[in-house]
């Protein structure tokens, strides 16, 4: 019953967008409750559909023709439904929180309109039944992030960050588009005879054709699609937009970093997992880029003082884990989709929580800089404790959600190594886990523990903001344990609905097929993540908490080159913006302009000067008086008409 209304999952937030943008100005709180209700209705619908399809492990598929050989459709399978549930739920929490957080902002109506559209675009991306539609919503997500990051457009830094987010992800999108076109062309060449209602770029059709497409083409397609995911999900080297994306309101950061946008890239790779699995080296690239990003971003998270920036790097790092989790599927097969998606879902809860807590702190304290905070827990009990819950799970404290999800990725990365696919992902992942625990608790201690380091405002946020925090905190702490096994099973078997034969694909992809014979991990490997997680927390406590034993200055000082590199974020901004964009690209543009003016147009002017060699006489005619031109034109027309008349009277031509 619910599944007949699946389109409303996207339809309602779009309706909310239209209503708030036109009527929001006249409504209390900018009509924000419309967006909240629409998103919550989406959650109810998704949950209803989940209850319908989960018991018998069914899927929902509806499709219609769009134009040419493309279609529009809805596909709700295990992979999609968990995303739908998460996005609608977390967005409901964030929008509710925003009712309090955005109070008093003159652009509130615009905020809730854009937030509604953002939610709609993400949901549309998730339930697409074909790659092109996914791309379309993918771009709309990009648009909304541009609008929301630049929400306070009067601030130059916000306008700049918005542009940066759009352009950097656009670089990835360009690759994504190229991948779609390459895939499309390869499928056209197959001359498939499609059954009624099937279209070329539908996932079912794609999965079916994988064995028919030449492997080298598969690799290119996989690399290009992954390029899109790298842009959207903030993987190295296109992660640079993400930390800047906090110029928008904190709720926007929460949406971008947790529920929507950045998870899209991971979702894409998960959705196209059979293709990556079949593509020689496709998964390896995902694994290495992901694991490297996890470590790389964690290093920068260590040194930032802006509370949101730490969280931003943490997002980049955790996304790296998710990618790595998919990448190590070379060893684990489709099981890894379950593992990675589980981390994605868990991360959405606790990262939304962390951002909203940070927002609550910033809202009260009035600064982003942790050096001016300290001791906030005394004044903001609820915020502090919920944030502690989020931090524990991010650090992978035993029995929290993050513990189950992240450690499973680390363990699968170990198996990936043990089965001879390379140890680097494991090494990166385990080191990053230590850094994660350290920077997370550095953040918590610096903010909430110790003494106040400046004279900030001291008040707790209103309950409309704290309510979502408490709910999210409960999920962040306790969702993992009861659902883990079922989740892996349910999502991991997603591709059985499409008859994907991973054994066959493994041959193309060049993987060993060793099912059942899972590597037996030594005991130390199993408990290492626990040791590292707890150890990291203790290290952070020793440096930054009230039980401080060491001073950070003992490890690093102002002049430390490593620290400088980290603070400068590996000079990527300088390379991308100052050198590549402003020197290379703009330089080419200026040279083009020169060529156009001097050479091409110059030639035109020269030719006209020569051919009208009697330039002097032309200049006399060219008196600039319009009437003269008019006369000339009329004369010409008259001559033409006379000629026609003569001709019609039988004068031979």
């Amino acid at each position: 019953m619910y599944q007949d209304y699946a389109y409303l999952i996207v339809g309602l937030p779009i309706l909310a967008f239209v209503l708030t943008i036109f009527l929001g100005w006249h409504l209390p709180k900018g009509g924000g409750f419309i967006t909240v209700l629409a998103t919550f209705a989406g959650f109810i619908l998704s949950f209803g559909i989940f209850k319908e399809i989960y018991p018998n492990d069914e899927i929902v598929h509806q499709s219609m023709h769009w134009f040419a050989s493309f279609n529009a459709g809805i596909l709700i399978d295990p992979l999609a439904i968990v995303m739908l549930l998460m996005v609608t739920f977390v967005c409901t929490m964030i929008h509710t929180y925003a009712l309090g957080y955005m109070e008093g902002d003159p652009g509130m109506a615009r905020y809730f309109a854009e937030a509604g559209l953002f939610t709609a675009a993400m949901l549309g991306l998730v339930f697409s039944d074909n790659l092109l539609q996914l791309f379309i919503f993918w771009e709309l997500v990009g648009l909304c992030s541009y609008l929301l990051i630049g929400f306070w457009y009067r601030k130059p830094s916000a306008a700049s960050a918005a542009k940066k987010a759009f352009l950097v992800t656009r670089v990835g999108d360009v690759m994504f588009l190229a991948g779609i076109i390459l895939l499309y062309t390869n499928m056209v060449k197959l001359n498939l005879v499609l059954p009624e209602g099937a279209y070329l770029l539908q996932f079912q059709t794609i999965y079916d054709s994988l064995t028919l497409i030449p492997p080298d083409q598969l690799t290119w397609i996989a690399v290009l699609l992954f390029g899109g995911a790298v842009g959207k999900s903030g993987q190295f080297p296109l992660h640079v937009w993400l930390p800047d994306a906090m110029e928008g309101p904190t709720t926007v950061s929460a949406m971008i970093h947790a529920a929507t946008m950045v998870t899209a890239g991971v979702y894409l790779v998960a959705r196209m997992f059979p293709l990556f699995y079949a593509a020689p080296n496709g998964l390896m690239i995902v694994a290495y880029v992901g694991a490297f990003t996890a470590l790389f971003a964690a290093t920068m998270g260590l040194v930032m003082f802006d509370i949101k920036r730490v969280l931003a790097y943490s997002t980049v790092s955790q996304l790296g884990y998710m990618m790595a989790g998919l990448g190590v599927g070379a060893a684990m097969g489709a099981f890894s989709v379950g593992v990675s998606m589980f981390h994605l879902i868990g991360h959405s809860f606790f990262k939304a929580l962390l951002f909203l807590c940070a927002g609550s702190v910033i809202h009260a304290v009035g600064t982003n800089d942790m050096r001016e905070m300290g001791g906030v827990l005394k004044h903001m009990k609820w915020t502090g404790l919920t944030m502690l819950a989020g931090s524990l799970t991010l650090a992978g404290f035993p029995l929290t959600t993050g513990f189950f999800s992240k450690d499973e990725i680390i363990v699968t990365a170990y198996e990936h190594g043990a089965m001879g696919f390379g140890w680097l992902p494991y090494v990166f992942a385990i080191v990053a886990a230590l850094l994660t625990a350290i920077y997370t608790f550095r953040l918590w201690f610096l903010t909430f523990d110790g003494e106040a380091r400046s004279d900030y405002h001291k008040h707790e946020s209103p309950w409309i903001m704290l309510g979502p925090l408490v709910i999210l905190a409960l999920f962040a702490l306790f969702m993992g344990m009861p659902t883990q096994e079922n989740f892996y099973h349910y999502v991991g078997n997603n591709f059985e609905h499409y008859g994907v034969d991973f054994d066959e694909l493994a041959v193309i992809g060049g993987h060993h097929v060793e099912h059942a014979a899972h590597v037996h991990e030594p005991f130390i490997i199993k408990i290492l993540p626990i040791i590292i997680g707890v150890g990291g927390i203790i290290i952070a406590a020793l440096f930054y908490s009230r039980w401080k034993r060491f001073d950070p200055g003992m490890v690093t000082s102002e002049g430390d080159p490593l620290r400088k590199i980290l603070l400068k974020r590996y000079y990527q901004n300088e390379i991308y913006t100052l050198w590549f964009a402003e020197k290379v690209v703009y330089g080419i543009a200026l040279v083009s302009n020169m060529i156009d003016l001097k050479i091409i147009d110059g030639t035109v002017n020269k030719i006209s000067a020569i051919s009208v060699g009697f330039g002097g006489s032309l200049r006399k005619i060219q008196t600039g008086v319009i009437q003269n031109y008019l006369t000339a034109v009329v004369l010409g027309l008259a001559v033409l008409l006379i000629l026609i008349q003569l001709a019609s009277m039988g004068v031979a031509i």
Partner: protein
Amino acid sequence: MIDNAISLMIAIPLIAAVVAFLNGKAAKYVALIGSLVPLAISLQMFQEFDKTSNAMQFVESYDWVPAIGVKYTVGVDGIGLPLILLSTIVSILVVVYSWGEEKRSNQFFALLLLNEVGVLGVFTALDFFLFYIFWEIVLIPMFFLIGIWGGPRKDYAAIKFFIYTHVASLIMLLSIFALYFSYRTPEGLRTFDMLTLLEATGDSAIFSPMLLNVIFIGLLFGFLVKMPAVPFHTWLPDAHVEAPTAGSVLLAALLLKMGGYGLFRIVMPMLPNVSTHYITLMAIIGVVSIVYGGFLALSQKDLKKMVAYSSVSHMGYVLLGAGALSVLSVQGAMFQQFSHGLITCVLFMSAGTIQHTAGTRIISELGGLADRMPKFAVLMMAGFMASLGLPGMCGFVAELSVLAGSYENLPIYVLITIFGGIAVTAGYHLWAMQKVMFGPILKKYLDLKDPHSYEILSMSILVLLIIYFGVQPATITDIMGVAAEPLVEPFIAVAATGVI
């Protein structure tokens, strides 16, 4: 359907033009009615058009100058109909946008109507002679729009526009004459009938390869200049910079489309009979236009000039799609014509509104306008997003069709376009948007406000159309697909026998 629908559609704006010219006071009302009626007729034609047929429909044919085989023949098929719709829609919206024009308003609105007469004639004429007359008629209103209502260098721009495109027209005319004098009907008569002559080009007994190639180059040149394609594009930025807003809109939205229309109507049917090297040539010119045009746009300081170069860049897709010779790519190229026609209107209207409210179009001198012009900012943003190819808007559908349809035959060109063109296109749009609209509002612009309602209205309608055709492209792409099939059919047949 009323008889002589097409003739009526062309005649009414012509009559209205005369009335408007003579009735100074009521000119804009006359212009509104005079462009509303063709719009109604074209919509009715669209309703009654047989969308599955390739044949010419609503054909009217009368002898005009029988002695030399000139006929008045008009008709529409899937190539022409979308452009007719585009012309009637854009024409009336330009009248609405220009509602406040006070300077010599009778002449102004008369010229807008005359322009509509010309383009509608070009898109319906099926006789080469008639085609050429309409083709030349279009030059006149544009010449005067630039020359009278233009900016400081209007004389240079008007003359350059006139001479450049006129030279191209004359070369095209020579080719038409060559066609005309080479062929006699079975009854031994000369004819200017377009379809007959184009069909005859397949007969190698009549046209030697040498002659045919010369004719072909002449025609192609005429259309490339009009589109305009690199390297024949330099008249365009000058014309745009000096033209009044209405002139720019018509120039970019309709006049450029005549070049593309010529490709589909005249060049492509001849392609199978001439050297296949031209396909490569068209693809190269298309890609160079896209990429080079994009970089040129990036380097501009004047907002309107940037938009002008973006036209060059976007029209490159038409050439690329036409050259790639697959149904999807040709259909996409046709849709790009339609879609660029709508989008570029919003862009030029934005540039025009900024010019007459803020007093300058120099990007670096503007800033923070969104603060005082929120409605306008939304519309301009929508136009810019459409122009950079955002899905959900028609530009994306067109470009996707061209790229996806072209990859099989022209993979390298498509890759160059994607990696060299798309990101740069996003770059200059966003950069301009940020500079002009965002950031703190500059002091001198503090008392700006949203433009007149008629400007907002015409831009809003365009944005709605852009979104509608982005979501429901099949409304019009189905017709284009049907029209594209016969154009690429000869090549598919050739490819199947393994000759290419």
